[in-house]
Each structure stands twice: as structure tokens, then as C-alpha cells.
């Protein structure tokens, strides 16, 4: 099983990177309950690529957030993990479990 705390750190690191490109009022708080529902398409792309890079840098694991299948889930209204930081962490943990199984 993937260490959820470690995944959360990696995701928060990616969000901190994303925040670099956002104005004070738009920035995402670095906490589990912070919503991710107001991101525009460019911010979503930035976030997905930043999460991939952060997971690779900090957990030394490779996941793809941008392949067709994953993107379909991420962009779907019902199944999207982009609700809160916490749901994104759960989703990334699942991807890591899958990659390691």
C-alpha cells in the first residue's frame, strides 16, 4: 500500500507549484479540504503535469495523469478526483497502487 501521507506531500508540492501561476485570490490552500472545482483548463493541465513531476521527484515513481484513460476520468463530471485536494490525493494513491501491483 502506498503511504498516503507521502502522496499528500507530493500533491501539495505540486499545488504549491501551481499557485506560483495564480493570483492571491485564486490560490489553492495547502490543505486536504481545499476545493479544486474552480480550475480552468490551463490550470488543470498545469496541475496534472506538476503532480506527475512531483510524484516522480519525491516518490521516485512514474504515473500518468495525462493519458487518454486517466484524462477521461479526471474530466468526467461524476468520477473526477478534482473535487478537493483530499480526493486528488486518494486518486493519485490509487494510481500508484495500480502501478505497483
Amino acid at each position: 500500500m502506498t503511504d498516503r501521507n507521502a502522496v499528500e506531500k507530493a500533491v501539495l508540492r505540486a499545488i504549491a507549484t501551481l499557485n506560483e501561476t495564480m493570483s492571491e485570490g485564486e490560490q489553492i490552500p495547502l490543505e486536504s479540504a481545499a476545493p479544486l472545482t474552480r480550475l480552468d483548463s490551463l490550470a488543470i493541465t498545469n496541475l496534472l503535469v506538476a503532480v506527475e513531476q512531483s510524484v516522480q521527484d519525491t516518490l521516485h515513481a512514474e504515473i500518468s495523469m495525462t493519458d487518454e484513460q486517466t484524462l477521461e476520468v479526471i474530466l468526467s463530471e461524476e468520477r473526477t478526483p478534482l473535487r478537493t485536494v483530499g480526493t486528488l490525493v486518494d486518486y493519485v494513491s490509487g494510481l500508484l497502487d495500480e502501478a505497483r501491483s
Partner: protein
Amino acid sequence: MSDRADLLLISDFTIDNFAALLRKRSTLKVVAAPFDRVESVLLGHETQAWECEPEWAMVWTRPERAIPAFGRRCELQNVDIDEMLVEVDTFAARILNAAERVRAMFVASWSAPPTRRGLGLLDLKPAAGISAALHAMNFRLASALAASPRVYLLDAQRWILLAGSSAFSPKLWYMSKIPFALPVFQAAADDVLAAIAALRGAARKLVIVDLDDTLWGGIVGDDGWENLRLGGHDPIGEALVDFQRGLKCLARRGVLLGIVSKNDEQTALEAIRRHPEMVLREDDFVGWRINWGDKAQNIADLAAELNLGLQSIVFIDDHPHERARVQQALPEVLVPDWPKDKMLYRTALDALDCFDTPALTGEDRQRSEMYVAERRRRELRRTLPSAEEWLADLAIHVTIEPYGPGNAPRVTQLLNRTNQMNLRTRRMTAAELAEWVKPPRQAMWAFRVRDRFGDSGLCGVLGMETNGSRAKISDFVLSCRMIGRSIERLMLKLAVDTARKMGVRRVEAEYLPTAKNRPCLEFMAQCGFERSGNVFWWDTSAEYSAPSWLTVELGEPYGGS
């Protein structure tokens, strides 16, 4: 106009991340031109892109898009390099044309992903190599843009190197047409903001260094100068010599060097004079405060002695407590975090981006010598009973020359960098100034000063425009080093004499206050002109005199720099 932009970004890729970073790190209003319409924006066809009347613009393109012939070579088609260079010339001409719309235009040089190996062994062969073509194109672009005082080519390859192996992001490119990862944009934003600060005259002018464990290794008071770590077959000693070389390079760019150190002065100066590995000697420093007093107070005293504002100063010290104390007491002074490891000192120094200037003049290269001569003048002053005797003893010689190509870079620099003796603080680029002096009713003169201690170079600028019976002083600027030598009075005399010759009855000087130009108000208040509020005037039917100790000469109209 409230909708006016500060910076227009013109690019053939999605530039939003870069724009967001610039907005976040500054107060600039940044606007992006329509995506991938570089050519038509530069040609002025996209009129709405220019409606925001930007003060600055930046062009950042991908080489394979901007230069189609290069794109074909990237696909390994047989393309002659001359074909690419013709396209580079066309691109450069469009940039030069568009640059007329702004105060200055920045252009990112072309770069390629470091992962792209091209033709490998043959990639630097001009006949077919991709890297060879890229180098040639960048060199041609730099040459084509060099003559323009409005256009600055920025080294994008440095941003790529700083960002490391993941600088280019294929995923961001395929998903959003963003070629670069965020670190590239961060490095670029640092350079663009430094460039704008430079053009606004905000460059730092003085680096003050500590001595023990900063300029050399060890404590000179305890170890003796013979035992300091400096040079020799020692990595720390070599690193500190290299750090001193870096400081010497700054001095050659016109940045002044000073010392503030807790030490016995004679002991420290003996080390500077006698240690065989010292790169910097006494005459490289324009002043020092070497004593056991508070460093913040010593920095403030040294700044006052040199007539420099605290916002002009960088302070380098190995000791975190001293840095914190200075930062807290003098927030305008830049106190960079400094590495503990002495082998990283030179790297930390080279990374500072606060010294950039839009031009490098003869005065810049000689600035340290001029300030050292200044120190000797002050020493002479202490031996003479009155200021008048001192000024007479200096044998000051002033050459007045009209503005022209030979002095334009230095005149522009003085207008943009002088804060204290500056009547109206009118900032202008070289191109704007060249336009301003064209009408016959507007004129500008430069003042060169030398005395028996040396040549102080071009120190003063007077701009004047006449309108009917009135002449208005538009620029009255004197280097802070020259304040109090009566050059100010000579400048006013030139304004009055010129106005009288033109049949103008009244010369007016309106003082526009800033946070830093109070010395100018103090001079104007006692210069003899009549005063009404912040407007000072002289009736030209009366003579305005300059002190007899000044020898004045009229120079060539386009005197050399």
C-alpha cells in the same frame, strides 16, 4: 489612461504561465497579444494588440516557427544556412519596426531542447547541423538588433540551463501549447524584471563587503595577515580569490566597492596592502568603515559620505546575525542570503541581478577611480580652512558640450540614474531622448568636469525648452559626486545666458518633488532665483554669475565620450 499596459507579451506559444508569474512578482500590468500571431502583431496588423499602449514589449518565439527554413532543417531537409539568415533579417526588421511603439523591447534568443541531439556528431557542422544553424541564427539576430537603443536580446538558453533537464515539457506542449516547464518561466521572469528595473534606473551602485571570512578566510586580528586563507593551493583560498575577481568585474561595470567590517582599521588595511594574493587593493574601494561600531550605522555613514541613497547598496557579510541586523535597521539595503560554504561565494555573487544597466559607458569603467579621487579631495578639504579655498585649490575645469551621439549613452544614463540633484526626474530611453532634442526650441547640454585629482567625466545634464518669452528648464541633473562644487550654478548660468541670446526674458525651473530629490530643492532655494512655490525663475535682463574658480570651455558639438 487606466487601460494602459506595462508589458505586452508577443509569442507563438501559450504565454499565460509566464504572464501570471510576472504579475505575481511585480506590480506590472501584463497583457498577452493574440496567440501565435507574432508576424501580424509586429507588422501592426493586429491593431487591438497595441491598443493597450504598452510601455514595454517582449517577443518570445520558437525558432522553427519564427524561421520556417530552420523548421525544415529540423526535419533534416536540405536547407542552406543563408536562407535561414535571410529570414532572420526579415524577422529582425519587423522587431525593429515594432520597437518604435514602446520604450524598450525585449527579445528572447532562440533555444532548443537539450535532449534533441540533432545530427549528433555532425550537429555543429554548418552545412547540415541543427545546433550550428541555431547558433548562426542567434548571432545574426543579435547583430541585426545591436544598433537599436530600444531592443535588448535576452539569453533564453540560460533559462533553459537553470531549469535543468526537464526545461522543455512535451506534455505541456501537446496539451496546451506551452513548450517550457515553470522553472524556465521563473528564470525568464527574473531577467525581464531585472531588465525593466535597469531601464528604470533602479540598478544598485555600491557593494559593501565584510572582511573576515567574507573577503578572506580567517580573522585578521587573531591570525595576522600572513596566515589568512587566500589563494595558494587551497580550495577555500582559491574560491575567495575568485570571489574577489568577481567583485573586481563588478567594479569594471561601474559598481562601486566599499568595506564595513568590525576590525582594527590599521590591521585590516595592512592585510589589504600587503597580502600577496589580494586581488582587491585599497584603491579598489571607494570608502570604508573599519571599526567596532554598529554595521548598520557604518553603512548609513558610508552612504552619506558617498552621497548615495540606501536603495543603491548591497551588503555582503558571512555572518547571519550581522545580515539580519542590517536588514532590520536599513530595509532599503539589499542584503542577500549568503552561502556558508566559501566555495559558493562567487556563484552567489554572479547570480545577483540588481546591477544590470542598459548601457556601459566610459564613465562606468572609470567610476571607481573617480570615487577614489573623490576620497582624496575630501582629505584635502580637511586640511584647508574654508570651502572656497578648497574649491579654488581643486582647479576645476568644466567642458560644456551639446547633446550628441558621442555623449548620448552617458547623458541617458545620468537622466535615468540620478536621484538627488534632479529637478524633474524625467526618465527617458536613448531613443526617446534622441527624439526630444530634434525640435530647435528644445536643447540639451552635457557637462564634463576634471580637476587636479583627475577626470570625473560627464557629470551634469541641462535640458531646456523655449516657448515664446519663457524658457523652461526641463532637466537639471548633476551626479551626486559633484554636488557642492558650484557646477550647479554654472548650469543655471548657461540656461540664463542661452535664453538671453535667444531674446527670452525669463528662465523657469519647476521643482517636481520625489522621495529622493530634496537636495535639489535645497540648492534651488539658495541659488538666487526668485521663488513662487516650487517654481524658481530668473529675469534674463540681469546677469547670473558662476564662481570665478571654475574654468569653463565650450566643447565640440559631438564630443567623444
